[in-house]
């Protein structure tokens, strides 16, 4: 009696979990198909030469997406340079160094930071950070790639902190004890044992942080100035740029369905999708390889 009941329960639960698992694959596939269907006509509608030119002014049929890709990349790059040291540093501090009470306060605070709506950060950016950067660096305007990158860094930090901290926590206590027993200092233990053991988790955290920065829209749209200039000069860091996400968000609302402009916006969506796919693939490749090697060492 009891046995059949539990088998049936087992079956039901497995069934639901299976459905949930497959449905997420299905959703991603459907989204990608939809993007392809709406975005690929841009290739014929606008033409490759127009698409990969450097002028973006869609109302007059200039559909050059090079400045937009460049804008997204430079802003994301700055975000990572900002978020990487702060994110991993904070994670190491919370997991390895901070006393219990500090840890109890810091962890929820980081989670609150993660929950802040990006539009709120955008407001802070436009009213506080941008004017401050203009004065500090003596710039023509504070609405620049750098401002956007710093803001995105702030947005990416909580993601990096919480995932790296989980990875560090998952490192067995015996590793640390063994290291200390061998006479290593606390710093040597962190740098030589704990962080390398948690490497794959930390890399995943960084990759997710990059993905978060690349996909962020609202805050970026508010503080980068949205000027479609190709950022190739050194001072481009401190000049306005226009990102792919901000372009889609600000132009999709008014565009006529099935016009060339509409298809080009979806084409930008395809590029964004492929970029974050590439980031995820790289992340899983790295963590997969790491695991195999560490397993080899342990065995």
């Amino acid at each position, binding site marked *: 009696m009891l046995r059949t009941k539990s088998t049936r329960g087992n079956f039901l639960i497995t069934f639901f979990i299976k459905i949930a698992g497959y449905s997420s694959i299905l959703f991603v596939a459907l989204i990608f198909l939809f993007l392809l269907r709406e975005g690929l006509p841009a290739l014929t509608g606008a033409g490759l030469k127009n698409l990969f030119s450097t002028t973006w002014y869609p109302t007059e049929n200039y559909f050059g997406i090079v400045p937009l890709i460049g804008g997204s990349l430079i802003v994301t790059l700055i975000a990572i340079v900002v978020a990487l040291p702060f994110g991993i540093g904070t994670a190491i501090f919370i997991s390895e160094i901070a006393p219990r009470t500090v840890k109890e306060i810091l962890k929820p605070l980081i989670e609150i930071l993660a929950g802040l709506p990006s539009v709120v950060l955008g407001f802070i950016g436009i009213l506080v950070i941008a004017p401050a950067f203009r004065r500090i660096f003596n710039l023509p305007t504070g609405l620049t790639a750098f401002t956007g990158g710093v803001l995105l860094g702030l947005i990416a930090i909580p993601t990096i902190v919480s995932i790296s901290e989980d990875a560090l926590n998952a490192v067995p206590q015996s590793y640390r004890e063994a290291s200390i027993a061998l006479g290593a200092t606390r710093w040597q233990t962190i740098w030589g044992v704990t962080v390398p053991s948690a490497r794959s988790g930390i890399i995943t955290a960084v990759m997710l942080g990059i993905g978060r920065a690349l996909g962020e829209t609202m805050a970026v*749209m508010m503080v980068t100035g949205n*000027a*479609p200039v190709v950022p190739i000069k050194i001072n481009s860091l401190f000049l306005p740029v226009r990102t792919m996400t901000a372009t889609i968000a600000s132009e999709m609302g008014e565009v006529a369905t099935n016009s060339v402009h509409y298809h080009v916006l979806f084409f930008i969506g395809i590029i964004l999708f492929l970029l974050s796919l590439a980031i995820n693939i790289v992340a899983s490749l790295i963590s997969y390889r790491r695991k195999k090697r560490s397993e080899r060492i342990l065995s």
Partner: protein
Amino acid sequence: MALLFLLTCAACAGGSATQSGNQTQSSNYYIQNKGSDTMVNLALAWAEAYNGIHPEAQISVTGGGSGTGIAALLNGTVDIANASREMKAEEIQQAQAAGFTPIAIVVAKDAIAIIVNKDNPLEQLTLAQLASIYKGEITNWSELVVGYDHPIVALSRESNSGTHVYFLEVVVRLSSKEDKSIFAPTVLLLPSSEGIMAEVKDNPNAIGYDGLGYITGDVKKIAVSKDIDSEYVIPNSETVLNGEYPISRDLYMYTRGEPAGVVKQYIEWILSPEGQAIVVNLGFVPIISGNK
């Protein structure tokens, strides 16, 4: 994506409301209103407010551009066409061939103020100088104001805004049909009026433009002249109403012949202080002087 969803939901909700209203009340009437994208928010606000006072009035508002609205008026599918320009001679001829005289009613005015930071000593500009700034030909304030050596940061609304398009036509292209110039890529495109106001208020290098109704006292309005020989005019409700300020235009509603019945009542309400108060809220200039 989310926005598209919202739009479709709003559309279906609107559609079902119209249907149920139709079933319960037989005295309902419909007014079809179509045209200028610049005016579409204004027309929607009027339609909603009017529907609040007269629930039996079902006013459908669509955009598509002034030309689309006028074409629809000519072939009789709408009662009122919104236009941010006057009808062309051939459109009037077509109307007369169709057996009616289109009547133009000025329902509001649209003026674009040029603004700079309060620390900027600049007082006045010609339209040609403004065009050079936005085409990226003038990049330092010292070319316009002696001794004010600062880079120019030109701000614009996003290209989907009607204000952007009007500014492109009248200022950047100086109202010339042959001129195909566009904004320089270095022009910052800000998503909101608030963004432009915040940046101009804070940044002594910035210049921006926006609908007169959005301008607050935190920034400095610039006097503009048509050309070097004309007078420089500061935009305010007076200079916009008497037509002296060069970057302003009338916004029209066109009807098939003299408006009559429910259409007449609706337009009279739009011209009333109540209707014109909505004009102010949306950043346009009302046609009743002293109402601003």
